């Protein structure tokens, strides 16, 4: 086959999400370039097909359809927000596409056609809380998040988890703010008050993107130092920090599966390539970029293994594929379409980087269905034949309805 392999890139280049997603587009483009420099795969070139879904959720679905139905791409790398993924999901399922999703998310999903290379809650939130509890001795918790599904779900999981661990209800404060919230005076003041009850307090932040800068500014100005009330964030990476004056933030934390500061050769190489690709000496890398790096390499491996880009063949081949990650270890694609990841806790430094202060002893496999939510406790996903099920109920021993229907539709 002489046709190039078409790689769809479905990341917002305009609108509110452009701030996060443009670098992911550039990352995939860079990876494609590099792969082509290595001679492509199966002797075929790779070709990027870029579209701009413009941070508009229905447009994500439309563009996904355009990529799959019109452009006939072999695979899509894309999406950041969960809502955009939810919007695209029916389309990739209907048209039997492949989607690599690189961002940490709330879990509770496993699609036959989607590969989740970002963290599930058990690969980020739970370990972070464990760290705070065990290493820092936190007893009182503020769960602050932007009001949407990822923080809601994550906080739900954490609340259940914390209560299981014996934390009293009054020691948990939950607070939601709208997207792009910029006036944090009251909330920070509340946090300060909440933290003055004589117990070590920490903030677990699922605050999204743009709202973070004013949040941290306010923290700094109201004099909340990391040593008093540390904030551990799940959505603040190097990209976000590059827009913040990090001076007052030193010591606050983030939990990710990758930091740019990680001391590994693979990482240093990746950074060098990235800087060369962007032509910007100050360019930073971050966790979702690593996720794409992993996802991309997994895809390449799977295509090699399957010997074709045929979607079904790749889907089968990719489970079990293992590729190096950037932190010096390996990532494996699990049967539930999530991958294994190390969990790192980093402290913000004054240079806008994180220094790793703690990490899990080994990699953690992503859990599609949380063990801390009653509705999904008993569910697992396994896309290997013959089970091929995204919602297998271990109690009843049967596959959930949606998968059943999908299987029927496939016939």
């Amino acid at each position: 086959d002489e046709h190039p392999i078409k790689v769809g890139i479905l990341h917002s280049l305009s609108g509110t999400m452009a701030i996060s997603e443009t670098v992911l587009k550039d990352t995939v483009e860079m990876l494609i370039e590099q792969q082509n420099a290595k001679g492509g795969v199966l002797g075929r070139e790779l070709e990027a097909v870029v579209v701009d879904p413009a941070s508009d959720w229905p447009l994500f679905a439309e563009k996904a359809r355009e990529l799959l139905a019109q452009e006939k791409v072999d695979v899509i790398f894309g999406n950041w927000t969960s809502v955009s993924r939810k919007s695209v999901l029916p389309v990739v399922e209907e048209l039997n596409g492949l989607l690599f999703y690189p961002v940490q998310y709330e879990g509770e999903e496993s699609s036959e056609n989607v590969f989740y290379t970002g963290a599930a809650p058990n690969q980020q939130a739970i370990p972070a809380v464990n760290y705070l509890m065990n290493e820092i001795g936190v007893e009182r918790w503020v769960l602050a998040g932007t009001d949407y599904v990822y923080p809601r779900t994550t906080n739900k999981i954490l609340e259940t988890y914390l209560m299981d661990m014996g934390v009293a209800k009054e020691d948990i404060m939950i607070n939601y703010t709208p997207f792009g919230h910029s006036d944090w005076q009251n909330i920070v003041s509340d946090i300060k008050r909440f933290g003055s009850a004589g117990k070590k307090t920490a903030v677990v932040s699922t605050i999204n993107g743009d709202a973070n800068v004013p949040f941290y500014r306010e923290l700094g100005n109201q004099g909340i130092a990391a040593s008093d009330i540390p904030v551990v964030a799940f959505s603040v990476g190097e990209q976000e920090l590059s827009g913040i004056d990090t001076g007052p933030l030193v010591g606050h934390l983030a939990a990710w599966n990758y930091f740019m500061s990680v001391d590994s050769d693979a990482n240093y190489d990746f950074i060098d390539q990235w800087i060369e690709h962007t032509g910007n000496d100050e360019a930073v890398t971050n966790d979702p970029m690593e996720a794409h790096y992993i996802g991309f390499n997994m895809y390449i491996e799977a295509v090699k293994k399957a010997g074709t880009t045929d979607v079904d063949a790749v889907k089968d081949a990719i489970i079990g594929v293992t590729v190096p990650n950037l932190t010096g270890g390996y990532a494996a694609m699990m049967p539930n379409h999530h991958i294994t990841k190390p969990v790192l806790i980093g402290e913000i430094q004054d240079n806008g980087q994180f220094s790793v202060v703690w990490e899990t002893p080994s990699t953690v496999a992503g859990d599609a269905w949380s063990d801390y939510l009653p509705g999904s406790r008993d569910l697992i996903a396994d896309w290997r034949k013959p089970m091929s099920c995204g919602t297998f109920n271990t109690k009843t021993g049967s596959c959930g309805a949606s998968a059943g229907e999908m299987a029927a539709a496939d016939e």
Partner: protein
Amino acid sequence: MGILRSLTLLLIALASVLSLPATAQDEDPGEQLLFNLAEAPASKVEEAINAIVSSGDERARGWIEAYGNNRLSRIKDTGQVVLVLNNRGRDWEIANPLTGENMGDMSRRELDRVAINNRIRGQLEGILAMLDLNAADPDVREASAQDMMGKVDASLVAPLEARLEQEGSARVRNRIEEALAIYRVGEGNLEAIDVLAGSLHPRARAALNEAVRGDNPALATKAKQALGTIEQKLKLNRAAETLYFGLSLGSVLVLAAIGLAITFGVMGVINMAHGELIMLGAYTTWGMQQLFPGQPGLALILSIPTGFMVAATAGIIIERSVIQYLKGRPLETLLATFGISLILQQLVRTVISPQNRTVVTPEWMSGSLVINDALSLTLNRLYVLAFALVVFATLMLIMRKTRLGLEVRAVTQNRNMARSMGIRATRVDIMTFALGSGVAGLAGVALSQLTNVGPNLGQNYIIDSFMVVVFGGVGNLWGTLIAGLSLGTINQLLEPWAGAVLAKIIVLVFIILFIQKRPKGLFPQKGRAAEG
């Protein structure tokens, strides 16, 4: 606790140590100390720090600070401990921690950071605070004593008491007494509660709270009483704080809206690109800070005129290229300026970056103005509040006292007639639009100190700005001021009990209902004239 014991030693040794000359060169003991620190496994770090602190080496403080700031690294090949002077980018500038001699740049790959974590950092801060307790500057001593609050343990009581003896400043004495009292309340000392009864400091309250929870009934009762009085005072402070939050949010709204009050309120141009003009002002600040690295304050001050000029120039270009063709078709300005706003946003994404830019807050704008332990006003917002008022007053003067104000109103009310009166309408248009745009630029300069500087900046403020202008009554600058401040205050009053989202919704519903009552805003144009 090891570290604190070493502190005691340190304090006693200090006076003499400070005057010691540098020790002999051949065998620098510092080298070993640093090596030990770098090599220490997590459990031995404390010991290593102890060793450094109690060594009496005058460079100790620098090392500890560097360690706390993640600036101690080792060269992978040689194991030598170095000081990282600049850790941005791929090549780091390093120096010899023993001699201070600059060792040039070294790739980050070659370096291995000496690990530190939050817990240790917290302890280091305690150490540094302790060191500061003897500083010459009473402010430093006070801050240090304040840091000690809640961190005092048995080993520190004696040195603190000793310090108390010598201390001349009443402020510092108070702090030290409070710090000691917190410790003593923990020990079950009833009198200590009297010391804390008037304190608004959160740590004092924390200590009292703990006493209430504790199993000493006498202590608990007394602590409860003390807490009661404190709560009373806190309430007042909290009210003042909320008011401040409200005015501060309000001033942001006013700043964002005031330029629009000119271009939209006075000229009648539905300027959807107003937000992007604000954005330009914010980017100017960023640009100025790039031009003057290391001098964020100077850059910020220079940004005020430049931000104005940049946005005003952009305004003039917009006026000349588009708006002038839309005279008498105000609604179509919406279409055109919407287009311009899209273009400007994407222009910034393409030319600068889709990511946010870092704008540094100068020293003098960081932190808070401390009124008391429970009430402090964040400085950046205080400056913005003042700035908003100054901008407002200036604008008011221009519109009221200069001919421009009169002419622009005449031109918008009846363009042809104004021209028949010899008013150069074109020039008036340009100047007014430039003024409104320039003020938007000023808003951007101010906002750069509060929020993201990025391509979406404008979008976040455009809706609010229109809301404020209209709520205040179109064409009335006072209205804009009052509307902004009151909407901000209402929002902040609601937030504590309704939450941020609901508070915002309630404010919007309030606006809707308010407009039912006063269909022409807060300060309506009255009389026949308004009915047309």
